[in-house]
């Protein structure tokens, strides 16, 4: 699943009018068995941004969260299809916090949680990782799974 998002670096926008472009891919990790958010950033002429510059773009709260959090942080991995280095939100904590998110009733052991449909899993997953970049899913999408079928899920 791929989509392109244009991030206006607000500081830069006011002073230099520079636009930063972010591409996001959601890729399934066979080893961690979870979806992983791959992303890269570049300027309008194609010059890639480095991690330091990206960190200036993401909202201050999430920058702090990433610095402190043990659930997720940014690393660089080889994109499995494009074979170039992309940045990712490291997936080692994903299954932990997804369990917390989806199986809320403490009385129910994890193993007994209902099988979650892929669409609902992805939307829930995205509602968490999207926060790093202040990406929001339209509320309607959270209610209506059929809207997801518009996108090509690779």
């Amino acid at each position, binding site marked *: 699943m791929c989509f392109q998002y*244009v991030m*206006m670096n607000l500081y830069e926008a006011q002073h230099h009018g*520079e*636009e930063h*472009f972010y591409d996001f891919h959601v890729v399934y990790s066979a080893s961690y068995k979870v979806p992983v958010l791959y992303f*890269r950033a*570049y*300027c*309008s*002429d*194609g*010059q*890639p941004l*480095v991690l330091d510059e990206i960190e200036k773009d993401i909202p201050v709260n999430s920058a702090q969260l990433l610095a402190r959090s*043990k659930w997720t*942080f940014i*690393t*660089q991995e080889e994109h499995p299809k*494009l074979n*170039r*280095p992309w940045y990712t939100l*490291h997936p*080692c904590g994903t299954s932990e916090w997804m369990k917390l998110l989806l199986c809320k009733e403490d009385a129910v052991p994890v193993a007994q949680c209902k099988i979650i449909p892929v669409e609902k899993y992805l939307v829930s997953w995205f509602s968490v990782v999207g926060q790093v970049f202040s990406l929001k899913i339209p509320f309607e999408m959270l209610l209506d799974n059929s809207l997801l079928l*518009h996108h090509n899920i690779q």
Partner: protein
Amino acid sequence: MVDQVKESILQFAPFQSAVDEGFWHRLSSLKLNKLGIDEAPIPITGFFAPCSHHQVSNHLTLLAESLPPESSEQSSTPAISRGNRNRCPVPGILYNTNTLEGFHALDKQSLLRAEAKKIWEDINSGKVEEDSSVLLRFLVISFADLKKWSFHYWFAFPALIFDPPATVVDLKPAAQWFSLEEAESLKAACNDWRNMCSTTDVPFFLVSIASNSAVTIRHLADFEACQRDGHKVLFGFYDPCHLPNNPGWPLRNLLSFIFKRFGNQKVQFLCYRENRGFADLELSLVGEAAISNSQEWINNQNMPNAVGWELNNRGRKVSRCISLAKTMDPTRLATAAADLNLKLMRWRALPSLNLNVLSSTRCLLLGAGTLGCQVARMLMAWGVRKITLLDSGKVSMSNPLRQSLYTLDDCLNGGELKATAAVRSLSRIFPAVEAEAVIMAIPMPGHPATSQEENSVLEDCKHLHDLIDSHDAIFLLTDTRESRWLPSLLCANANKVTITAALGFDSFLVMRHGAGPMNPSHEIKVQKDLPAEIETLSIKDELRQRLGCYFCNDVVAPIDSTSNRTLDQQCTVTRPGLAPIASSLAVELLVGILHHPSGIFAKAEFANSIEASSSEQPLGILPHQVRGSLSQFSQMLLVGHASSSCTACSSIVVSEYRKRGLEFILEAINHPTYLEDITGLTELKKSAGSFELDWDDEDDDDEFLEI
């Protein structure tokens, strides 16, 4: 009828280019594998889509797929691939030069005219009605510097110009122009057009409005048919631009086509823009353009002038340049991966890991054998980048098995010099390492120098002194005891972090030397207002705290250990597993020292000590000595304090060296008992058993010392 109102010139928002990194990767690969120095123009395909956000325009994008496939067989599929709703294919051409000079020397005027001519011819021949995307034909010039991984490029979007320019009669959001019924019908028609594979990538179309407000979308070729039906017709196009007061670039050539082909002097157009995949009639614009050129323009076979070179991000009419070294240069990729690996360790497990100190610590390895090779590799794994290897030997046939930097090739033709081969090997493993080789033998006591050799021995001593001075951490990894003497002395003199690793047959010793004797200890340093006398007096106390070096535990000065010994004692024969273990511990010990707040002055720590349990040291304890036994699969942590009679690091010896320098060294090398005499060890041996040593003597098995 003369128009009273002065109308403003129709101003078009320029097309913007966007080149995906994948395009450059593919072009590089194409250039290297197939094209070589061939500079023939390459047909490419650009992709664009209607604007989908009210704040951001869309671009004409080049992707990896924009270049023709690399397969050698001529495929029957057309050069332009079918697109999808997000990718409208547009034909273009790429002129890629072999040199930067060639790039700048291209005749941009004539290249632009050549492409504009193709558009003009397509308008005249009727090709536009078959495939309207040819109206958006574009041109790119580029130079790919495949050594520096930088790319210079420049786009041109040729547009035929009207002279005088077209003016805008009206321009407003589409929602304000259509009636409510028409708007609903239009939205439905657009969505159908966008949903069908056969039409979704057709960027120019007609909006035909019937008298009953029913709207249909038709191909450009159907214009005359629509006119016959008496419908109101708007010329529609996918507009990449988001601006509320300007139509996008595609309108330019569309107007030229309409005027040339149908002769309309007033053209109503729809700038089609979307939001979330559906027609957005607030964002989309409907306008009317007035073209005041005469009939001559239509009849004239000569091509009008063209413009279209893209401005760069600062608004200047120059080419652009980007550097992709970070993602394409293999050395940079390796460095970035290594750094990220270490950072991962810091994030996940060791937040206090100091990567800067590791990458800036200059390490000197004395010995490039089993220990030297392993230590070097381990250091690189920890992010150490500056490594100097010193060894006078050559790689021999038995070495590659145990000395992990060498292969058979290094043994041939008499054998490569070890230090050189090691440095080469390190660079092959990690190109960003800054490794240096020093070919030199270490002068040793008990191996006297002849008068001819004296000068070169003195030079070697000086050289070693300078090397130790210019590095931050020294590893003593040689294979004899006496070769460790001079380095130990020099390190004590310079107060450098020193790590010794020594191997027996199935046992090893890894230890860190204590601080040198001439510096006040860490604790005393803090008390700044102490008068000088008290400082010198307290050196004796300070000795109690100063940790020992390799020789402190000896009662015998280092002498010739190689002669009069059997073969298995002359060359160190060890169990193969020993060297990697000892080397790894040696490097981990260094990392511990570098992270310890007291550094070289750190006290010896033990697993169950009070210090360890309250320690903020996330790397764990920092012992003084580790002695291990493979036969027992065991390891002991020991401490040995500095000896005031040590032949290498006692204040007597170090101050002699400071006073007399190389002369002192020479005497120690040439006279076997000299060191014992001046340190009082000779006396000590004479009165063995009848004195108190103020050492902290732990379980010291002698068998560990015979190395």
